[in-house]
């Protein structure tokens, strides 16, 4: 089992000089010949992970293994991996041939230098010299042959003499792929290689890359923030967020069985609601009780409920099968289906895909089959911080000092701080809050938004009615009555 693992990341962490953990204790094993995609929003650490495999970044801690041997101290030029860069990074001072032959020429020079060193040591010099001569004679032909076949693989035959600046984006991308492939790497690393191409070309290249992977049998590690791309191409998807792996699985697994609300939201469209499990196979959300297929939760455990828009069926209000009734508030024609927003009686917004058009304002019924309701444990139900009493009525945690009731605690005492998701308030001005940060995640929960605000090394999780945008820079304040302190022993 272990011998077909080609790349293994062991407890890898990366911290940049600013102090943030970009990658946090990452463990990942990649099988030989696999097409693995690191998927996540920008800033999730996927590119940093790739760069650590390529050798451009050193992990702060942990180990990177190639075929079971550590390569963490191997410089990039000695690693048998090649990278396709996001912005191609073609050498402007070489033509297409020169770009692709770059690696081969260096390799052949190294071989010739080695042979020369051997000649100095060899007893039978004539034989060694003859070998060197044939090596030199063949090198040029060999390189030319390999460049030609690499160009053929990427569909750019006869482009050798072209100036790279005269090529279109798609052609440049192909040259970049050929330049990496021609060195016959054990692992090909691709850092969002298609992100600057237009949609149609991107889709074509996705299929071509997938085909190349199947024909060449090389391990591909692919980085993207595009979930559709990941679903199309990968054998295995690694979903990352804030430097932590959320889920590793096949495209079908990550789509059908997302482990948490973040993965469900990131991969495919989905409705995510707060729910409660009163007992096995029963879930309450939107004020209604539904049958479901999930078991193994505590009584009345708070859960995230995920519904795919294609799993919600629209029917007439009078239909006895209708479980939810609501009003159509939007309807967009998407080609195969209509994408509709339906507001339920309890003011919860559903995203529904339906092939039959319904007018905006029309009352409809909806039903969901029990096995289409995905129940997920909540990774957290409130914010928990380690804190310290900073003085009477003052407590420090999460990168700031907040007003709170500190009765029964002494100054300097270490405490646990608990703040409910609804207790954190987000304000527009970064400097108006006790701490300032950036919004990293937004989940629409039908009736409200759940957002993560990253303030330095701390993440505040907030329920809010206000609609924010990704990467908005905001301030955090907390009403003292929501801050609950606990003794550390407890």
């Amino acid at each position, binding site marked *: 089992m272990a011998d077909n693992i080609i790349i293994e990341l062991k407890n890898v962490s990366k911290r940049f000089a600013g102090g943030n953990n970009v990658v946090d204790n990452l463990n990942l094993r990649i099988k030989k010949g696999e097409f693995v995609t690191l998927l996540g929003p920008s800033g999730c650490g996927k590119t940093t992970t790739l760069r650590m495999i390529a*050798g451009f970044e050193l992990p702060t801690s942990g180990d990177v293994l190639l075929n079971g041997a550590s390569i963490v101290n191997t410089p990039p030029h000695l690693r048998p991996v090649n*990278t396709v*860069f996001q*912005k191609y990074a073609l050498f402007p001072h070489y033509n297409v041939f020169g770009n692709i032959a770059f690696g081969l020429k260096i390799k052949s020079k190294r071989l010739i230098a080695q042979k020369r060193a051997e000649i100095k040591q060899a007893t039978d010099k004539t034989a060694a010299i003859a070998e060197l001569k044939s090596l030199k004679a063949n090198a040029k032909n060999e390189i030319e042959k390999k460049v030609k076949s690499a160009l053929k693989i990427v569909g750019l035959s006869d482009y050798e003499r072209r100036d790279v600046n005269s090529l279109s984006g798609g052609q440049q991308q192909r040259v970049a792929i050929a330049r990496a492939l021609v060195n016959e790497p054990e692992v090909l690393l691709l850092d969002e290689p298609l992100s600057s191409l237009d949609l149609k070309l991107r889709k074509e290249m996705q299929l071509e890359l997938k085909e190349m992977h199947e024909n060449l049998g090389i391990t591909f590690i692919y980085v993207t923030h595009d979930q559709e791309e990941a679903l199309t191409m990968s054998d295995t998807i690694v979903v990352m967020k804030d430097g932590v792996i959320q889920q590793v699985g096949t495209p079908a697994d990550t789509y059908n069985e997302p482990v948490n609300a973040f993965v469900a939201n990131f991969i495919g469209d989905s409705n995510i609601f707060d729910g409660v499990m009163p007992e096995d196979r029963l879930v309450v959300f939107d004020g209604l009780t539904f049958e479901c297929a999930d078991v193994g939760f505590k009584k009345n455990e708070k859960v995230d409920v995920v519904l795919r828009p294609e799993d919600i069926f629209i029917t007439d209000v009078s239909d006895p099968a209708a479980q939810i009734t609501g009003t159509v508030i939007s309807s967009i024609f998407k080609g195969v289906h209509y994408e509709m927003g339906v507001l339920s009686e309890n003011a919860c917004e559903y995203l529904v895909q339906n092939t039959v058009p319904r007018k905006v304002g029309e009352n409809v019924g909806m039903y969901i089959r029990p096995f289409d309701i995905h129940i997920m444990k909540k990774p957290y139900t409130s914010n928990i911080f380690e804190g310290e009493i900073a003085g009477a009525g003052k407590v420090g945690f999460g990168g700031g000092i907040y007003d709170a009731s500190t009765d029964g605690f002494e100054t300097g005492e270490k405490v646990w701080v608990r703040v409910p998701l609804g207790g954190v308030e987000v304000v527009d001005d970064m400097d108006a809050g006790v701490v300032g940060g950036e919004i990293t995640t937004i989940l629409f929960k039908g009736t409200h938004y759940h957002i993560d605000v990253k303030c330095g090394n701390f993440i505040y999780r907030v329920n809010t009615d206000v609609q924010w945008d990704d990467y908005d820079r905001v301030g955090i304040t907390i009403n003292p009555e929501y801050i609950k302190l606990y003794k550390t022993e407890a």
Partner: protein
Amino acid sequence: MKFRMKRSYLAMPYAVYLMLLIFVPLLFILFYAFVSDKTGGFTFDNIIRALSSAEAIGTFFYSILYGALTTLICFAIGYPVAYILSQKRFKMSGIIITLFIIPMWVNFLIRTLALKSIFYSADIPLGAGTAVFGMVYDFLPFMILPIYTSLLKIDKNLIEASEDLGANPRAALLKTILPLSAPGVVSGSLMVFMPSISTYAITDTLSGGKFRLIGSLINMSSFSNAGYSAALAMVMLALILLSMLISYKFNDKEETQGGGLW
């Protein structure tokens, strides 16, 4: 007629300046180059002398030689400095760049005279060596700055790509960084080469009269033999135009990573 301000009018002061102080004097030089000092009539003698006399050819030869030597030394010192300054890891680049520029705030004649005093007090005899030293000292910033800007413009991904393709740090420097910074090297070299072949203040002050470059020859003969001096100046101008044309050609090819000053 109503006066309407056009943007091109803003160029007028400079155009006047250019005409009066550069273009007109150049016409005078051109005129004198073809006028005989003795008879005042039209002649090719000055030009022929400037192109064929042993004195002129020898001086041109030495000028080009010492100009090239100065350029080479400036490159050898300047490139590593510019490279180190362009590294992100190097935190003090701002301070160092300022240190290189500060001497330029002082008039170069004063700097050159100060250098001469230093040579005197250190008992170093003046000659070709001290003159080249002075030229390198005066012109070095003109080499560093263009190389520094062109190094800063290099896409770091290209350097990573070359390492990724198997280039060790030395090969990455020779096959990627050096060719990509070539436009900066060309501009820097011109910025050093052109003033070094034409300078006379530095060479006169620091060579102790032991050797002459073309600038000194023009300066000296302008008192005694204005036509000859003008002809020499025309030849030098042609030389400078030629080196600029060569650099234009070079910069055209390297359009992608401009570091050129023109």
